[in-house]
């Protein structure tokens, strides 16, 4: 049965334990430029907020988006939304990957196999949530190895009967992991419970991109950096179900990457710019 994460932002207090637990389990380095043992190294620059991680990176599979908002009563709201790969049911990244490095696990996660990845970057270009990122590894002078990376929903843990590291570490139960139906039922119940206090309470991810990781949001999705509507572009479907099979017959698997490049660079529409919370009303 498909399993999913369910993130209840009304319970998240922004402690960021999930960010560190993720790095620890996945053995991801801190985002620090330079050599920590030497004198010269630097962190990401100061940005005036507690949210020091502002974008996914090959070292950063998850982060808590934070947003301060003026409240109607003259006070302030401080929103926290834990973000990671959405593990879409109709996963664009999976559809566009020319080498099938991205697949679905029996538990429902969208799994990116770094061994198979050729670093073409189409998943990076086409993700409606800006999740996968390329990691540039210098192999020699002028030689770079590129690999895409993203959250695999701790597939290794899940396949061994554990829950993802982020869910395991969450102190308030804001991050839960379980059967999708069960999680959806929890979310639905929660929306009703929260409506009186949070009129904007809603579920996100029930239908978006065929269904994604489930969110309980108390405000507009834009405040959490989520696009209001996320769908698979028709071009991607066209590629997946027509152009690619035909192309494979015509040019053979080896040249498919080039064909995909031509396709995604010329046929795909410009991607929807993700909402910046400032612009959302």
């Amino acid at each position, binding site marked *: 049965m498909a399993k999913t994460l369910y993130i209840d932002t009304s319970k998240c207090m922004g402690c*960021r334990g999930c960010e*560190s637990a993720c790095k620890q389990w996945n053995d991801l380095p*801190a985002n620090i430029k330079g050599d920590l043992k030497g004198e010269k190294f630097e962190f990401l620059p*100061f940005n*005036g907020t507690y949210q020091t991680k502002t974008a996914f990176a090959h070292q950063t599979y998850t982060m808590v988006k934070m947003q301060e*908002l003026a409240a109607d009563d003259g*006070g302030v709201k401080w929103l926290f939304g834990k973000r990671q790969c959405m593990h879409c049911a109709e996963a664009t990244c999976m559809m566009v990957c020319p080498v099938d490095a991205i697949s679905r696990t029996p538990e429902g996660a969208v799994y990116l196999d770094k061994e198979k990845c050729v670093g073409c970057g189409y998943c990076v270009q086409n993700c409606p949530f800006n999740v996968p990122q390329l990691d540039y590894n210098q192999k020699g002078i002028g030689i770079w190895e590129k690999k895409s990376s993203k959250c695999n929903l701790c597939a290794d843990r899940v396949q061994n009967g554990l829950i993802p590291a982020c869910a395991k570490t969450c*102190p*308030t139960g804001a991050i839960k992991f379980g059967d999708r139906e069960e999680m959806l039922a929890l979310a639905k119940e929660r929306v009703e419970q929260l409506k009186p206090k949070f009129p904007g309470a809603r579920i996100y991810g029930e239908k978006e991109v065929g269904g994604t990781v489930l969110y309980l949001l108390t405000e507009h999705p834009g405040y959490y950096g989520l696009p209001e509507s996320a769908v698979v572009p028709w071009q991607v479907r066209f590629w997946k179900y027509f152009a690619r099979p035909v192309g494979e017959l015509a040019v053979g698997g080896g040249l498919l990457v080039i064909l995909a490049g031509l396709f995604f660079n010329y046929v795909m529409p410009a991607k929807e710019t993700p909402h910046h919370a400032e612009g959302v009303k």
Partner: protein
Amino acid sequence: MTNGWTDLKETDCALIIGSNAAENHPISFKWLTKARDERGAKIIVVDPRFTRSASKADVYAPMRSGTDIAFMGGMINYILQNNLYWKDYVVNYTNAAFIVGEGYDFKDGMFSGYDPKTRKYDAKQWDFEMEPQADPKAAPKAKTDPTLSHPRCVFNLLKKHYSRYDLDTVSRVCGTPKEKLEEVYRTYAETGKPDKSGVIMYAMGTTQHTVGSQNVRSYAMVQLLLGNIGVPGGGVAALRGESNVQGSTDYALLFHLLPGYINAPNANADHATLEAYLKKETPKGGFKTNTPKWVVSMLKAWFGDAATKENEFGYHWLPKKDPKKNYSWIALFEAMYNGTIKGLWTWGENPPVSGPNCTKEAKAMENLDWLVCVDLFESETAAFWKRPGADPASIKTEVFLLPACSSIEKSGTVSNSARMTQYRWQAVQPMGESKPDLDIIYELFAKIRELYKGSKAAKDQGILNLTWDYGHPITPEAVAKEINGRDLTTGKLMTSFANLKDDGTTTSGCWIYCGMFPDENKYRAMDRDPAEKAKGIFPGWAYSWPVNRRILYNRCSADPAGKPWSEDKKIVWWDPNAPGDPAKPEDGPGAFVGYDVTDFNKFLKPEKSAAAPFIMQVLGKGGLYANTGMNEGPFPEHYEPWESPMKNAFSSVQLNPVVKVWEPDKQGSPDQFPIVCTTFRLSEHYQTGTLTRNQPWLAELQPYMFIELSEELAAEKGIKQGQKVKVSSARGEIEVYAMITKRWKPMEIDGRTVHCVGMPWHYGFAAIAKGESANVLTPHIGDGNTMIPEYKAFLVDIKGV
């Protein structure tokens, strides 16, 4: 905590004040979230800034740092004026009905009995009127008026004292809008009903003030008025600042105490002999009448066979302190600064970051001959001699850095805020030559004793006679057994402190933990039964002192007849059919039963136990009025912080009259430094950051030192988001990043706009995430009782760089 972490799920309302629990005690929100979801509990946050806790609150009220007593005094007044207190509880279980003697008086901010020369009160003036007792050994009893009509009964004095704390004055002082005050008061006072309970959660935001202890008192008083002590979901919850602070105070890592909260002996006539000491320190009433059993058992644990009746069980081997001297943090660093202290061991301490006026404290360390630093990394303390601005060549201090194990590299217990001692098993082998703290102290003392071998000097006999027979290698279990104690007649481990004796036949290193190791193979700190008995009580999970009790003062959960006040809040109750005391068959059946270990002799008839539900109090009742124990008076009274933007609105007394002013020339004035500043912690860092600022995953979470300020202040000063700013106080200046946020707002204080700002205090010059230390700015002044420094309210100015 009078209750515990898991008990938070039973609350109907949590008032978080002086704490940022979501941020610094995230696990508390596991239980508060449950309380909210399952019971519809409300969460109130009172804080100068909108914190991560505030983001999850139902009610948030801003309050100027350093005005807790005004805020809580206003609540006491609101509760009394609107008759929202729980009368049955107040009359039966608090000292509201006690009649105060005529010596008590209060005028213009001062209680009777003050001596301006010594800056001390004579607390005798505040005594109760006592019932005459024929038997001099009988427990003392105060005169009472259960109708609460006597003009000098505690209740009426309380009412009078806080009638001055009206909404307008409180709002003017605290900067909290009146309607917010009322909303907080109304919401919290809802818990003053038999079927409701509320908890007040506090931390360093409460204690680190010149009136820190009285701040806590004010919370306890509100809890007594609302009947929130001794019931599930109630209590005063002191959220301790790190995993084992509770343990460190329990075991008396404090200059004025012996283990188990017994006053340390002084070098004066009162304490000249063991007999004199015990006479002085043993009250006539309450459970502390057992003090001689605890002290003698402790001396037997420490000095073994060498402790005999003839030598007063080695009492003279205990160090005695000069009662006129203070040995707390600030005093120690003043003494180092003046060159009287020549050597220093720091054990997980980091004064150049955490000390108040830390520039001075680092400078003070230059006067040391030697410094030993036990830590996991080279902290700012270990590196103080090469700190920015120091001249290593001119510093003669010899510095030793001993590598210590981290918590996962060793086994042992920590005692958390819930008084729960929990064993943690070693997970990995120690790195390099690092050692557990226990091994370091074990080897250290063995070496010290070797150096004293053969000495006949009287002062050395304590060192030579100390029991140090833990076996090699030393284990936490060996020490725990000594703490637990033994019956020397049978050789068996003690099962409860009730069996300790004052004749030298029992031992116990710390009486409150007696019973945690009742059998050679049973160390209850290792217990891990996850089953909930009821009402948030998990009795099989580790061990809470005393005697595994989870809710202190739980007699108060039932009425004087022993019937629970409400079904929802019941934890212990009288069962007339339960088997009675086997030692007193003549009393017949009947005992208290329930979910928790009772806080009193469960076989006592309910009326008897109801007479003294607060067993540690001499007079047995909850103290709305403190005739002893508080240096600045029986009721908390608002005084301004040492550095304040306004004149005290409640009296002409500006500063807590009993605090010691160490550096009168280092006081900033509001003309020069108009902004109120406080310091705080972040989830992302721990204490002085030695552990977290050296750990890349955590360092990257908050890599920079910053100051939080409002959009309004930024606009006034022309400061842009993320730029560098200089923050200055009368002690110094630091350069940090500006974090401009909606979470701070200017406050209306005393009829004008006052800006408030705050900074994390985790940063220093060492580690991979560096920053200037907030404590460069904080003052060398402390609380009137505990001397904890006033880190939380001081004046600064800020300008762009």
